[in-house]
């Protein structure tokens, strides 16, 4: 059976040229960039080149790029680093309720350490309201961290407005651009955030490597101690194979950006239209149009997400869901709940994230197999989408989800 990969927000396949280049820097060119000899210099200049490639992808200068072990470390470093560096100015941070756990759990940790965090609500399309943000600002606010686009429902935030507002009050703005960088154009000159996180494996680079952009002059402290790598901001011998891979992936992404965005968003719109037309009682999750090129997210009333994923997997299709049972946690996606979806509708969500290798045939195949799967699951479902609304406030008696 042909396998179809529709889960590009989870991770992507490493580009062949990227993998080849990484191999070279694990074998022949294995030097430590800090070494003075030829092996070291070879590695050093490769890291230098990658820094330029990553900077070019987002319109930054290479001096503003710091390599990390991925998106999670990048979010930790940017948020904690800026918070610690500014704690004498204030201890208030503003973020949103739909961030990735790399941001949410970092903020929760800072709360333990005495910082105060506001988690902004979002509207039913998972977008932050600028006025709500303005009202949350206090004299002690030192950082606003709002994701560029959401990983589950794809909604793109009004980051330019957010930055303008933050700067009006002299507050640094960080954005988690992990889903955006390499997949959708970003430019830190047009949208002058103070810090930004990106991750290699979301755009055909390797896992375990990423970078943060930190605008020149932004106050930030290291959160781990060791050697003086990355200008003392991120100690540890550089992951040279990962860094060169990230660099090349960034260059390829930039070169192919316009074509990829067009091709992928066309497939996305075809898929959205196809599902709306062929399956009744569905709800699209996220912003209708202002969403990541590859993101499609639906809830199918009366259907539970994990059952749906297993059925699709039997047809060779890999997708994802925000249901409790598919996430391995006990509660459905915090993003869908923050958008105001009832739990039972959140349990029935399906996320399809398209990538550059997906074809129209694959989309058509999904449109062919999905309606009968939904119909079959609904025909055996004990929930018709209606009768439970009266009980919505209660959990079942033997439920552990409270």
């Amino acid at each position: 059976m042909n396998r179809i990969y529709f889960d590009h927000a989870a991770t992507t396949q490493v580009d062949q040229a990227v993998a080849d280049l990484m191999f070279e820097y694990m074998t022949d060119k294995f030097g430590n960039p800090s070494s003075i000899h030829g092996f070291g210099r070879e590695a050093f200049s490769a890291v230098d080149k990658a820094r330029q490639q990553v900077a070019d992808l987002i319109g930054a200068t290479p001096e503003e790029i710091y390599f990390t072990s991925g998106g999670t470390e990048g979010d930790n470093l940017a948020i904690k680093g800026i918070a610690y560096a500014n704690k004498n100015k204030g201890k208030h941070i503003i973020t949103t309720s739909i961030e990735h756990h790399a941001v949410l759990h970092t903020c929760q940790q800072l709360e333990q350490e005495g910082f105060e965090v506001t988690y902004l609500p979002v509207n039913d399309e998972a977008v932050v309201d600028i006025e709500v943000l303005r009202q949350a600002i206090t004299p002690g606010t030192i950082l606003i961290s709002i994701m560029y686009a959401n990983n589950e429902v794809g909604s793109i935030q009004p980051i330019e407005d957010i930055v303008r507002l933050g700067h009006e009050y002299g507050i640094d703005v960080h954005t988690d651009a992990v889903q955006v960088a390499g997949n959708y154009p970003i430019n830190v000159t047009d949208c002058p955030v103070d810090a930004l996180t990106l991750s290699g494996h979301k755009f055909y680079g390797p896992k375990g490597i990423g970078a943060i952009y930190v605008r020149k002059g932004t106050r930030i402290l290291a959160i781990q101690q060791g050697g003086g790598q990355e200008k003392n901001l991120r100690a540890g011998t550089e992951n040279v194979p990962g860094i060169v891979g990230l660099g090349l992936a960034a260059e390829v992404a930039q070169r192919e950006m316009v074509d990829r965005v067009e091709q992928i968003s066309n497939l996305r719109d075809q898929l959205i239209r196809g599902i709306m037309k062929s399956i009744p009682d569905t709800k699209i999750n996220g912003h209708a149009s202002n969403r990541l090129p590859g993101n499609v997210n639906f809830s199918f009333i009366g259907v539970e997400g994990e059952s749906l994923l297993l059925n699709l997997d039997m047809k060779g299709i890999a997708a994802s869901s925000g249901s409790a049972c598919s996430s391995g946690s006990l509660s459905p996606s915090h993003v869908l709940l923050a958008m105001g979806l009832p739990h039972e509708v959140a349990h029935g969500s399906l996320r399809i994230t398209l990538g550059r290798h997906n074809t129209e045939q694959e989309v058509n195949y999904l449109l062919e197999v999905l309606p009968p799967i939904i119909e079959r699951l609904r025909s055996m479902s004990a929930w018709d989408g209606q009768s439970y609304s009266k009980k919505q406030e209660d959990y079942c008696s033997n439920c552990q989800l409270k």
Partner: protein
Amino acid sequence: MYTEKVMDHFMNPRNVGEIVQADGIGEVGNAKCGDIMRIYLKVDNDIITDIKFKTFGCGAAIATSSMVTDLAKGKSVKEAEQITNKMVAEALGGLPPIKMHCSNLAADALREAINDYQSKKESEQDE
């Protein structure tokens, strides 16, 4: 993560559907938690002659519903009452620990249906 047996009961569930004039109906769970199970019984001379289920839920929820109906079919009400969630899980070759919530509903739904049958029978005898 699921055994072959679980996947078989999930993809080819036994006894799916409703019984129109059921002698007992049991329902557990709640859509909010992501699982609801409803079991319908037909009882003749204290023997479960027919049993059907409808489930909103994950793979484990559907597979356990299917298995519990298979185990109960043809048994006396007394025997069926003895079926536990543990027996259902064992018959399926085990279930992942993370699935405890969804896996622990099927035998409860069966017992609810049996309770419903018995209370209907008692109220008939009272008349």
